[in-house]
């Protein structure tokens, strides 16, 4: 092989290696657990669409995407079970009235954004990060409802009249070997924008 050919081969090998390294770095970046965004500068919080749900007590830190409710009145979480869905017909965090409804998947084999939702206990804190700051909530009640009971209480749980800005988290529970029998619902009262140190 002549010198120019060798140089050309080395250049080609270098390019291939660089491409492989870039692909590898990208893979590592996506494989790493999601990290919370840099701490926001807290201040007065106006109502704003949620971006992230963070529940330190049960290790939740998930991206929030808006989801709609169709005419069939079914609330579906995002297809990516690591994300959670904010019902876009519900209140935005920081709003005085209405309730902010966020849902996420429970995955039987693990890895769902709300696998451990039922482990929350009254008094524990939930943070919802928005573009304008973080809204902190305190868990008031954790309820497990059958599907029929959930349908019966739907207006009470998800209705948007009044509400005083309550947060409602909902997922599935009660795996019976083939499907889920119940829903777990967490009701949390708004505390406000946490001070920087407690964030």
């Amino acid at each position, binding site marked *: *092989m002549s010198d120019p050919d060798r140089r050309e081969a080395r250049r080609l090998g270098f390019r*291939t290696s660089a491409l492989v390294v870039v692909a590898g770095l990208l893979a590592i970046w996506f494989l790493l657990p999601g990290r919370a965004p840099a701490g926001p500068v807290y201040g007065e919080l106006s109502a704003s669409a949620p971006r992230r749900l963070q529940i330190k007590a049960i290790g939740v830190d998930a991206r929030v995407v808006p989801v709609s*409710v169709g005419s069939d009145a079914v609330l579906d979480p995002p297809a990516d*079970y690591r994300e959670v869905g904010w019902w876009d017909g519900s209140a935005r965090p920081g709003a005085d009235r209405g*309730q902010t409804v966020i849902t996420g998947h429970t*995955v039987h084999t693990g890895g769902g954004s709300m696998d451990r939702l039922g482990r929350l206990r009254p008094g524990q804190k939930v943070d919802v990060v928005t573009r304008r700051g973080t809204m902190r909530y305190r868990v008031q009640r954790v309820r497990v409802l059958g599907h029929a009971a959930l349908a019966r209480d739907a207006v009470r749980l998800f209705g948007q009249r009044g509400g005083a800005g309550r947060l409602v988290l909902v997922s599935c529970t009660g795996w019976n070997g083939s*499907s889920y029998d119940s829903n777990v619902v967490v009701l949390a*009262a708004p505390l406000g924008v946490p001070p920087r140190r407690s964030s």
Partner: protein
Amino acid sequence: MTTRTRVARLVAAALTLALTGLAASPATAATTVARASGAALTLGVGGNPAGSGTYAVTNDGTHQTSTGTNRPVVSALTGQSVVSAGVLAQDATTSVRDGAGSSAACAGLAGQGSSTVAVGDGDCLVPGQTLSLAAGTLDLSRLRVVDATVLQGLDQQLQTALQPVLDQVVPALQGGLRSGLQQVGDPGLFLDLGAVQSHCTAGPGTADGSASLADAGAHVQVAGRRVDLVSLPAHPAPNTKVVTDLGAVATVVEDALRSQLATALDGSLGPLSTAVDQAAVLDNVLANIGAQLAPLDQNLLSGTLNAQSRPAAGAIDVTALDLRVLPAAAQAGLDALSVQVGRSTCGPGGVRPAVVQRATPSTPRPRARPHVVPTRVTAGLADGQRHDGRGDLLAALGALFLVASGAGFADYRRRLTRSGR
């Protein structure tokens, strides 16, 4: 065409129009498919009504209309002095799904520092401090030492001994009673409420409701002491009756009077003071005074907790606390008072009449109106592989890696082959 014919045709046309209108009216009449109401507090003070009013909503299948306020405040409760602080809550809502109406309501009263929660998930008040309502004071000034009863029940020997000095003993005991009652003062009757509230829901053919009473009861403040009359259960069964017992109050009053009466009796007996069993006489007098309080016992307060009625199928009326100070208490100086705390009504509902709609091109998933709430949440997966967006991305990266490696290797081999020729 004659004038008579024209008139006849006009009349016929008018009748036709009227009949057509009548025939069509059922379809166009407004139908209420859901209704609910909440009333935080209703008072009747000496026959005069006062309170927060009622917030009521109805839904005709397309719109909800309301009357009253769902943000009542204590400062707006005029014409009464029973409640001067606290937090009121009364709210109601309706919704329609697939033409069927459903409703929910909540109402109650709580102490300072309480917070309100949206109508929906049962309770609408989170308790704060306990609220104490002054329901009135007991006027004990009518208690008397009745001449005929002073000797009643005493043994014959004692009656014979006291008979000559009865004219001195009775007035002395009356004086002792007066000064004793001055020390006791007028016992105050209070209703204690932490958070008393009711809520209800109704749907097609069904209705449900309940009430809760946190830290609720009644007590009397007498002679500087608090005497509990009744402690109300936090979660009473429907239509639980309230029973009061004034026995403890009578005991406190009698204890407070005993020393004054003993002094008066001892002073009026003179030389007989050592010969007469004063304790027996005192017990006799106090028993008779206690008997004058007896009508109040079991009859001071009357009421029902978690009062429920079903005025129609698919409807419910729940009142957390329905209390009246009885007429017997009026004899003791209390104004007639009625208190209703936390009344919620839901239903009956109905189904919106079917409307023929023009066929429209199907859309992927029309967005529901804002007031249509989700009734099903499908948030469970058996496993996550097929839904993992990150997995798809990693697969794509892996493919990119393989393609890049393969292309590079092939090109490298091609170059080596070409240079070897």
